[in-house]
């Protein structure tokens, strides 16, 4: 079902764990659905003085696709400038994993969501200018969380 690369990331995930005093945290997903991802970021500066993702770690509860996506998204984002990291999307991530079974692609959205939410969290806390796109993305994540909460109301 899963390709070799996905299974490698699943067996030996990169960048998992916590960051103490992170600059931003993105928490997405719902345990009732079966996938939860938390991404922690630490921000630094490169030689040009641009803000970069100096360190990134994740904690994930979920299936193979969710765990592998978390691992690859942290790989993709690590060392990138915030501007570059904001451009990471689901297609790029799935491509880097060499593909995911169609039924599993929805799990991978969460990984990108968690990353962008962590950047959003950092931006808000540090009163940075938030691009329209990031704002839109944050609103979508919030909306989806509400829909899921509503769907699983009986379990809350």
């Amino acid at each position, binding site marked *: 079902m899963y390709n070799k690369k996905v299974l490698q990331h*699943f067996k030996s995930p990169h960048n*998992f*764990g916590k960051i103490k005093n992170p600059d931003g945290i993105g*928490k997405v997903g719902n*345990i009732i659905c*079966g996938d939860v991802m938390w991404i922690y970021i630490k921000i630094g500066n490169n030689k040009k003085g641009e803000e970069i993702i100096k360190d990134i770690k*994740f*904690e994930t509860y*979920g299936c193979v696709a969710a765990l592998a996506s978390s691992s690859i998204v942290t790989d993709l984002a690590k060392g990138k400038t915030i501007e570059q990291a904001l451009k990471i999307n689901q297609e790029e991530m799935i491509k880097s994993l060499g593909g995911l079974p169609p039924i599993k692609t929805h799990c991978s959205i969460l990984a990108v969501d968690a990353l962008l939410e962590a950047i959003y969290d950092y931006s808000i806390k540090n009163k940075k200018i938030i691009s329209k796109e990031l704002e839109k993305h944050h609103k979508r994540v919030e909306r989806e969380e509400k829909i899921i909460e509503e769907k699983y109301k009986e*379990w809350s």
Partner: protein
Amino acid sequence: MKVIKTYLDYAATTPVDPRVLKAMLPYFTEKFGNSVSLHSFGEEAKRALEKSRSIMAKTLNAKNENEIIFTSSATESNNLAIKGMAFANQNKGKHIIISSIEHSCVLNSAEWLKKQGFKITKIKVDKYGVINPKEIEKAIRKDTILISIIHANNEIGTIEPIEEIGNICEKKKIYFHTDAVQSFAKIPIDVQKMRVDLLTASSHKLYGPKGAALLYIKKGTNIEPLIHGGDHEFGLRASTVNVPAIVGFGKTVEICEKEMKKESKRLSKLRDKLINGVLKKISDSYLNGHPKKRLPNNTNFRFSYVEGEAILMDLNSYGIAGSSGSACSSEKLEPSHVLLACGLRPEQAHGSLRLTMGRWTKEKDINYTLKILPKTIKKLRKISPYVQ
């Protein structure tokens, strides 16, 4: 680390026993006749078919061999039982009682009948998955025509009080069907003692080939066929009979019946060793299903903070094969209806793992699993946000 192939998914399917395969082989080649043909080739096939029928009747303690109908799968048998009974008896009423932990083929047959105007009552179970016969008695209405209750659940292995339910059905004169796919030839079954009118069993769960199953239909039971055509299987199931598979089914039941007592004792021991080992070695681990009233070969656990598909795939990398009731491991992306019916929350069902044993499971397989599984859970918990 050395990977050791360890199959612990016998409730999904089993390998064919070499003795069974040997018995089947001639029926693919030299004894290939159509069981309804009148010539010697047909007669030869017919004899083999009737021998299997007689084995089944004896094993179930059916009064008459003609009470056994061969089908292609348990799903087909259950469809025939539920829909065939509904169609045949709808002039008497349109109410059917099932449990909330039936196999999906019973559940979805009932759901489909609902769309055709039938009324379905699903009986709840307790936290171990046990059905209270009194609840069934309470649910019976004037227009109840059929009650269908699984004998032993396929996920959690809980064995239901079929005899008690059978007595209620007999008293109330309501047809009673039981899906005995997981229990047949594993634990004793007596259709007369249990007072069942219909019973489903399957070959491939018992070291027989896929493509053969049966439906026991007590003489005098009013049922409509679903597959129309020739006169095979007493007009209740048209189709050229799959003689080689049914020969294999017969042979395997003969073997299972002979070895049942010893095998069930052996498996129960392995089961209890696995259960006790897992619960002892892994913190926040729980047993799903009943601690005592359960199939000799079934274990079903749940582990907090981790997801079942990830557990399965990590075990798979060590060669261990199991299954899970998590949403992510299902095609529908829904957690197991059986575990939810037992009162578990979805996130508890997501962390479930079923390990089922069989004829070739040895103590070393259990030891190996008890070595690997704690590592798997520990590793996944390290990544989980829910563990501090």
